[in-house]
């Protein structure tokens, strides 16, 4: 879990705002859902590391916890940090801290698996899917251009259903619309994406009596549970632990959805 400086293998534009970033890194054991904190610049601005999920572990050994010699991330350019990242070229070095967080709990073999992703939420779900190799994916995005990585899921032999905001692929509307009907109490839902989507997925799952795991995002400073900056409010279900606030970086990023107070997210 030491901080390490690793070499960029590739940093390629996938679509107008998405990049695939390959890092040469003899990884510690990585579980699906883990994330890393990258330092995008040696300078002081931006000062803080940026969190990114792990998309692939290359040449990986292991079943649930993977060790490899490279990782691939997928990121979207949204601001200063990801802007700088997108200008990096192969051969340059980056400092990576991780893997961090808890990862997705393995599903019971008797359970059906439905993964639901919004935008960049696809990232940790792919690593998850590639280890368990079953289940269905519901993938929501702005438009068709943002769904390119879905072919990686198809290559795993998984069924993918799309929802796009502009209707350019699949259902026109929210991806959570697809959730109704496909889940039963025998389903476990794995969700990653923007907060409103997660809230909806949690709602629907609760109504259908399905278990739901969500992977949350929150601005982070340390990524290792010490700054207490990435807090989210816990629901009363969390009371036994006597903790009103839980940390996305160290208690999560994956939580059982009923442990979260969705009204304060």
């Amino acid at each position, binding site marked *: *879990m030491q901080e390490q400086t690793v070499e960029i293998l590739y940093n390629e534009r996938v679509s107008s705002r998405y990049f695939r970033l390959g890092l040469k890194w003899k990884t510690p054991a990585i579980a699906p859902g883990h994330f890393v904190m990258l330092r995008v610049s040696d300078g002081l601005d931006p*000062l803080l590391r940026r969190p990114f999920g792990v998309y692939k572990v290359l040449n990986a050994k292991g079943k649930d916890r993977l060790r490899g010699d490279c990782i691939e991330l997928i990121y979207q350019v949204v601001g200063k940090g990801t802007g700088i990242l997108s200008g990096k070229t192969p051969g340059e070095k980056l400092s990576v801290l991780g893997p961090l967080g808890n990862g997705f709990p393995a599903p019971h073999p008797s359970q059906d698996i439905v993964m639901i992703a919004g935008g960049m939420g696809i990232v940790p779900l792919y690593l998850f899917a590639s280890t368990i190799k079953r289940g269905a994916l519901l993938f929501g995005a702005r438009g068709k251009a943002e769904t390119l990585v879905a072919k990686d899921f198809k290559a795993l032999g998984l069924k993918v259903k799309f929802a796009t905001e502009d209707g350019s692929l699949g259902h026109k509307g929210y991806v959570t619309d697809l959730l109704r009907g496909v889940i039963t109490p025998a389903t476990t839902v794995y969700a990653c994406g923007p907060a409103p989507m997660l809230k909806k997925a949690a709602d629907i799952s609760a109504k259908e009596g399905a278990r739901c795991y969500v992977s949350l995002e929150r*601005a982070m400073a340390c*990524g290792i549970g*010490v700054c207490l900056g990435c807090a989210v*409010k816990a629901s009363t279900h969390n009371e036994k632990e*006597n903790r009103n*606030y839980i940390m996305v970086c160290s208690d999560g990023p994956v939580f059982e959805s009923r442990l979260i107070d969705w009204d304060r997210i």
Partner: protein
Amino acid sequence: MKKTKESTLAVDIAGIKLKNPVMTASGTFGYGSEFMPYTDLEKLGGIVVKGLSLKPRQGNPSPRIVETPCGMLNAIGLQNVGVEAFISEKLPKLKGVDTAVVANIFGETIDEYMEVAKRLDASDGVSGIEINISCPNVKKGGIVFGTDPGEAAKVVGAVKKSTRLPVITKLSPNVTDIKLMAKAVEDAGTDAVSLINTITGMVVDIEKRRPVLATSTGGLSGPAIRPIAVRMVWQVSQAVRVPVIGMGGIMTAKDALEFIIAGASAVQVGTANFVDPNIAVKVAEGIAEYVERHGTTVKELVGSLTTG
């Protein structure tokens, strides 16, 4: 006699022996043990733990942090496990680790400060107490202890009576004249002062037209504030006789040396720990390199600034 490596770096802050002048700042290093996977705690002069209150505190609503140019704001709200859980659960994890452990404490009343200090006095493995006076005084309608010399002195006097441990008072920079505050707490008996705590700031989300932080304002830390912190350490070190511990935006040995030369007997590394959990050790190593290159000692460097 050739100076040994230890003696060129070691400093003594009011009886707290530090093998080198680099400590980690409260609230940025958890309870210490969280950093064991990332760094070698024994290479640090000392560790200041997250601020402790009498009862556990849940902290502020979220969002609690936001990045700013060369810095960050935080409004954690002093979330902590409480002094009892610290003593029973956290402190034992540092047992046998050869570094000084300083407990940072706070309260909303003077009694609360005293009570926390008493509990720590009875515990094993704490080398000193750092009083955080940047806390609103509930009895005085929320004015901050740390901006009123009289109130600050009362807290310090009360804590001194409650413990035999060395007491460091941590000063707030949100004041007109930090020398006045430093003198007030010196007169009240503090054994050392540390500074600076964070500077109050705000970031606005212009699309939502709301503050980014749930609490509206938060405390600014990081390299952005370093020039202000160096100035205050310089002013305070000339105004008081007790040792001064400097902090605010230290990222490198060079930054730490600015504070030491300006008058700090030791330094604390804060926000930088988030950027690199091993950075405080690198700062200590860089200071060792400088001290060796210049054939001097940290003690000689303290306050060696020439002005005019």
